[in-house]
């Protein structure tokens, strides 16, 4: 009788030990894999941040060269043309010089726009909202589109590096809406939403499924949006409602006043 109980007990005990051993092996596999995945994710994030920083530095360098170098040289040429205009009496020559001055002025403006798009100088000196307002003003001038703005009057304390990434995301979204969506009307709103800043773009362009495009696109623009959102730890929501594309970016303000 006792032996029978011992046997049954032995079977239960032995089985429990074996079960715990197998479970331990399985847990080791799971823990090891999770550790590897975390390391890979950290490496990937570090590479991503390095790539975005390198891109930012390169943009700054090119923008500076364009502004200080090319722009400066074009202004110098304009001055020479102005001086030369005073020395000629031939009406044809004067007209030609005037056309040259206009062409060079246009080229200088284009260079300034390119430089500004590459690295907006106002971002560090004035902050994100004035930079966005300036950007939207230039969009109005250069494209056939109406833009309405609604910016919060609350102080917006976003660090410059994050402001730069948000600016780039909004720039890419607006650019896509105009070029690919053929939008004719665009609304830009920046408001507080609980502890977040909400950046909302509404456009009347063709329907755009940004989540699908972000996953499937091979273009650099949308991949950069993904990368920047990851860096900011922000989320992008996109809906299509009443024939309008609505994109919302929620940015968590680290030192919120609310």
């Amino acid at each position, binding site marked *: 009788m006792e032996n029978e109980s011992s046997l049954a007990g032995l*079977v239960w005990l032995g*089985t429990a030990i*074996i079960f715990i*051993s197998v*479970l331990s*092996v*399985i847990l080791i*596999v*799971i823990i090891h894999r999770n550790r590897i995945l975390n390391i890979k994710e950290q490496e990937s994030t570090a590479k991503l941040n390095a790539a975005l920083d390198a891109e930012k530095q390169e943009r700054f360098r090119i923008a500076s060269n364009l502004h200080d170098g090319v722009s400066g040289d074009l202004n110098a040429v304009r001055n020479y043309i102005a001086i030369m205009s005073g020395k000629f009496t031939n009406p044809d020559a004067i007209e030609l010089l005037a056309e040259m001055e206009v062409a060079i002025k246009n080229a200088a403006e284009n260079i300034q726009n390119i430089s500004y798009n590459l690295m907006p100088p106002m971002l560090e000196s004035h902050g994100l909202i004035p930079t966005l307002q300036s950007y939207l003003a230039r969009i109005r001038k250069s494209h056939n589109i109406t833009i309405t703005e609604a910016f919060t009057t609350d102080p917006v304390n976003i660090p410059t590096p994050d402001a730069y990434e948000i600016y780039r995301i909004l720039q890419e979204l607006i650019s896509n809406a105009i070029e690919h969506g053929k939008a004719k009307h665009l609304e830009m709103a920046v408001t507080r939403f609980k502890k977040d800043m909400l950046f909302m773009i509404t456009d009347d362009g063709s329907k755009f499924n940004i989540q699908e495009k972000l996953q499937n696109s091979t273009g650099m623009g949308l991949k950069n949006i993904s990368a920047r959102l990851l860096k900011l730890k922000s989320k992008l929501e996109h809906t299509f409602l009443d024939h309008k594309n609505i994109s919302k970016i929620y940015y968590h303000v680290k030192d919120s006043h609310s």
Partner: protein
Amino acid sequence: MALFIGIIPFSILLWEKRALNIKEAVIPFIWITALATLYEFFGTELLHINSTYWFQLYTILEIGCLFYYFHHILKQWHQKLLYFTLALVLTGYVISCFFWSTESNLIPLAINACSVSLFVFIFACLHFNMLMKKETDVWKQPNFYFTAGFAIYYACTLLLFLLSTELYKTEHRIDPWLINILAGIIFRTLLITGTWKMKAA
């Protein structure tokens, strides 16, 4: 309950119209699990057919399905070891047939439990080793659930089947068989989870 949940993985495959897709390594095993559930209910419970025939037949089907499963998931690795171990398992099976009788199949059960469990342990460990080297999330891999299920079931029931002849002589012939039921529930739950993940993959 432990019996009837064996039909769920097969039901999922039927629903997804993948029951005949033998490219998935585990499909044959899901088939025999469903077959076993149906036989044990209709054959053993309702018609009281002698189960010794079925258990011996089930063992050879089980060996075949386990070999198919590990052969597919390990792909080009460890094929020689796989065939060598299969030969050992089949040798064990042939030996168990000499001890088989219509009155009792506990000795063949013990012999086959030894060899099949060894087969499963070796290749489950190799599969886990392979999973640790891959850069994928194990929770999303259906084969992880299947291999874990096999490892847990055959580990938990090894001692039970090895000592089944002695246990049958005692008054405690029923209680330890709860181990088989519990292990079966865990195994079939993992089988269902893995089949569900296959659907999502």
